[in-house]
């Protein structure tokens, strides 16, 4: 580890270091406010450090990590997502009686995991990042001990995540046993040398798909998603929906590129079928939901399906589309969950449809934001979601995946049903007189920022697009 290595890992080091410091802080004296402030500070420091990273040239820290533009961009995404989740968390946990401080430690650790995933180019770092994230997520999901649903969600996630990582590991072991390499590029080279991938490697990839698919929450590995979203504290749900899925997706992209997986039609079809299944299952099941959290969970499954289409489109257009959609999706999900989080009170979360009836006349600003987020999920213009979906469709048409595209269109129409239904509920006239709750400053601030970002990306996405393009070009 030379100095420059450490320098290039600075954001990661900052976050992980501050996790340790946070532990000590809690040990010294429990104080929710202090912890929150400190964590926010840590994230901001990391972002600053990230800002000063040399952007263009890929920097390899053999054998585990590679810090290239792609990694940096996504690190930034993770950090920003984490930051906004933080802003939403304070008020949410302040009104609950459990010990609040550990939440921030776990959040930091989970973020560390995500950041490692994003820069890893080796099975070991993959595994480490993944598990660091998962294990802190167990804690986060089950954080509100008083709620039994929370524990249930925690244990479910734990068992299934462990199961999936077992699959992932076994798959990696098979690949390793066959190729003798654990770094992605190495495996790629090995696969180049032979004409057809040996059965062990194919089996290994298959098992790995299971592991990855679980983390992405795509059909048929999606059963956990709704329960977890329902049971977990809302900020955590937002975090899972964005950071955990996002970082896994990024890793998948890197791995796929390094082993140039686009050459293997089997894999392609596997993912294609998964994409279709996810779209339909997600949307259809979302139609049936009466619980907003579960609805969002299913819709997130569907969105992963959309992203997979772009992913399958391949080429640079497809990859750009994936990243852009990811950004839009992150903004939107955090926004949506954030609204829920701000609406929740001490005892239970705002998750039933009736909690939202006439919201617009009680909390116009909140309702407006939620509407914006839902419309973005539905892919209506003026929102980032629209540009994202357009990007995906464009990539799809470019690669001539007509079947997938038609399904996409059908599904977005299905999606409209439940998104618009929710919007309609919010605009229903009030049953009673409007009682307004004071909204915490931080939360509203974060949400407004997200909203502005959403509209900005929806109206003038060129800036982001160019950034993503440059990044992809540096990736080569």
């Amino acid at each position, binding site marked *: 580890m030379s100095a420059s290595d450490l320098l290039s890992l600075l954001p990661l080091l900052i976050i992980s270091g501050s996790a340790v410091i946070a532990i000590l802080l809690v040990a010294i004296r429990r104080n929710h406010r202090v912890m929150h402030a400190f964590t926010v500070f840590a994230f901001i420091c990391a972002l600053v450090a990230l800002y000063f990273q040399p952007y263009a040239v890929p920097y390899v820290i053999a054998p585990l990590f590679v810090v290239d533009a792609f990694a940096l961009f996504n690190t930034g995404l993770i950090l920003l997502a984490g930051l906004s989740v933080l802003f939403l968390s304070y008020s949410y946990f302040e009104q609950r009686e459990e010990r609040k401080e550990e939440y921030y430690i776990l959040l930091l650790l989970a973020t560390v995991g995500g950041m490692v995933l994003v820069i890893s180019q080796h099975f070991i770092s993959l595994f480490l990042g993944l598990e660091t994230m998962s294990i802190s997520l167990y804690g986060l999901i089950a954080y509100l001990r008083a709620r039994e649903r929370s524990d249930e969600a925690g244990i479910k996630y734990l068992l299934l995540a462990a199961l999936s990582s077992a699959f992932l590991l076994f798959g990696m072991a098979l690949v390793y046993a066959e190729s003798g390499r654990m770094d992605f590029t190495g495996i790629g080279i090995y696969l180049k040398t032979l004409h057809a991938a040996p059965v062990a490697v194919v089996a290994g990839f298959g098992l790995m798909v299971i592991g990855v698919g679980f983390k992405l929450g795509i059909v048929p590995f999606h059963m956990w998603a709704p329960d977890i979203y329902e049971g977990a504290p809302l900020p955590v749900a937002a975090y899972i929906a964005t950071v955990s899925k996002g970082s896994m997706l990024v890793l998948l992209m890197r791995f796929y590129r390094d082993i140039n997986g686009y050459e293997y039609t089997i894999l392609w079809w596997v993912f294609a079928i998964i994409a279709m299944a996810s779209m339909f299952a997600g949307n259809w099941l979302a139609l049936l939901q009466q619980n907003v959290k579960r609805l969002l969970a299913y819709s997130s499954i569907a969105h992963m399906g959309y992203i997979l289409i772009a992913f399958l489109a391949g080429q640079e257009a497809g990859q750009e589309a994936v990243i852009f959609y990811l950004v839009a999706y992150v903004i939107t999900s955090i926004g949506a969950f954030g609204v829920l989080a701000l609406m929740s009170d001490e005892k239970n979360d705002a998750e039933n449809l009736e909690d939202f009836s006439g919201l617009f006349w009680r909390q116009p600003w909140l309702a407006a934001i939620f509407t914006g987020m839902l419309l973005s999920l539905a892919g209506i213009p003026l929102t980032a979601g629209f540009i994202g979906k357009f990007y995906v469709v464009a990539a799809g*048409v470019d690669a001539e995946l007509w079947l997938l595209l038609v399904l996409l269109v059908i599904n977005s129409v299905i999606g*409209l049903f439940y998104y618009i239904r929710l919007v309609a509920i919010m605009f229903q006239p009030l049953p009673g007189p409007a009682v307004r709750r004071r909204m915490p400053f931080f939360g509203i601030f974060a949400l407004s920022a997200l909203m502005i970002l959403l509209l900005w990306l929806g109206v003038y996405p060129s800036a982001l697009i160019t950034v993503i393009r440059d990044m992809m070009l540096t990736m080569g």
Partner: protein
Amino acid sequence: MILLAFILLPILGAFVAWLSSAVHRSAPRWVALLVMLAGLVLSAGLWWQVQDDVYFVGDHWLRTFELPWMPRFGISFSLALDGLSLLMVVLTFFLGALSVMVSWNEIKERVGFFHFNILFVLGGIVGVFLTMDLFLFYFFWEVMLIPMYFLIGIWGHANRTYAAFKFFLFTQAGGLLMLLSILGLYFIHHSLTGTFTFSYFELLHTQMPLEANRWLMLGFLIAFIVKLPAFPFHTWLPDAHTEAPTAGSVILAGLLLKTGAYGILRFVIPLFPEASHYFAPAIMLLGAIGILYGGKLAYAQTDFKRLVAYTSVSHMGFVLVGAFAFNALAYQGVVMQMITHGISTGALFMIAGSLYERLHTRELDRMGGLWPALPKMGVVTMIFVMASLGLPGLGNFIAEFLILAGSWQAAPWITVAATIGLVVATIYSLRIMQKVFFGSSQREYTLPDLSLREMLMMVPLIIAIIWLGVYPQPVINVASRAMPSVAIHSSK
């Protein structure tokens, strides 16, 4: 630049109106009205300017405006205005101003948000009429939807939620299909020329294989005839019109439907000439069916607004017939029809609205014998009913006459059917008068006649419809500026 102003004026005005509701309850109304009038003045002024150079020849784009937007996709914020768009913009602001006035007393709650939506939807419509970039077009196409959804869904009548939902889904589905075909066109053009662009002017000259041409054309066509609406896709319209507040109905009937017609004229025919010729007979048939079927259903209605809604299905049938007749006469007729129908139907909806204000019902059976009570309203209604049945001397007559004359050359039989439609129109129109104003009244009404505000709304409409009927030349002139884009294709 002025084109940008046309779009920004309502959209910015929307936000101002919303915020201004904090100042005073009726502040939004004034803001909206001023914005609309300003737009009207501006557009009329533009019209006046181009009046001067009636006889210039060459490219028919009166004004253009271009800004790079998403270079990565070759998307640019490009606006252009020709005679057609000009007329449509003028109409938009005209009806916009009226729809603000008509909801002056009707809308009592959430005034700010209401006017926000009105202005926003109008902004979207203006955008649709002006943009010459297909992506931007789709963008505005969708922007129109959401506020309209709210207009219906929040301020509408009994089962507004359902109506709004239906409206939204129909148009949205159509829109997505259009998006697909836009993208298809985009990539075909790229594969041919190697440049990514959504620019209308570029795409105009893509020589694509016949197969693709037809599929893409269908994509566009469906989106537009859903909006229009033509026969199989019209079911959303009656619900939406009936449930919407008066202003909403006016905008729907007067403007939103026109976007469909406009889309056909502007995009379908020029972009896919071969395909349009290929499908023309089928489409004209649809149009004819729409005319008759709409008329029949209109006759069967007992709900005033619902009746008027179906009449517009019938009238839009004429547009479809004319548009695919491919000749100058029919084309001018279509333009005329779009305008006159906007005016007359808008007026009828306003009357329905003010009747509802007075009687709190839309049921024709619960009305009748109102003439003694409301003579002024009776006169006004009479005029517009006559207009909608195409009485000579009123705008609609010119429009429908031109369309029929044009389509006669193209498809005589369909023309015959359409002409029968005129008869049907006469029947249901007279039925309105008969049911509402004549006949025996159930009880003695003592109702206030048209107020000053209502007269202020009606008089301009009457003037417009009569003027269009007596001296349509200016409109036809301006419209004929846009002729070439169609005339080219009609010359085979």
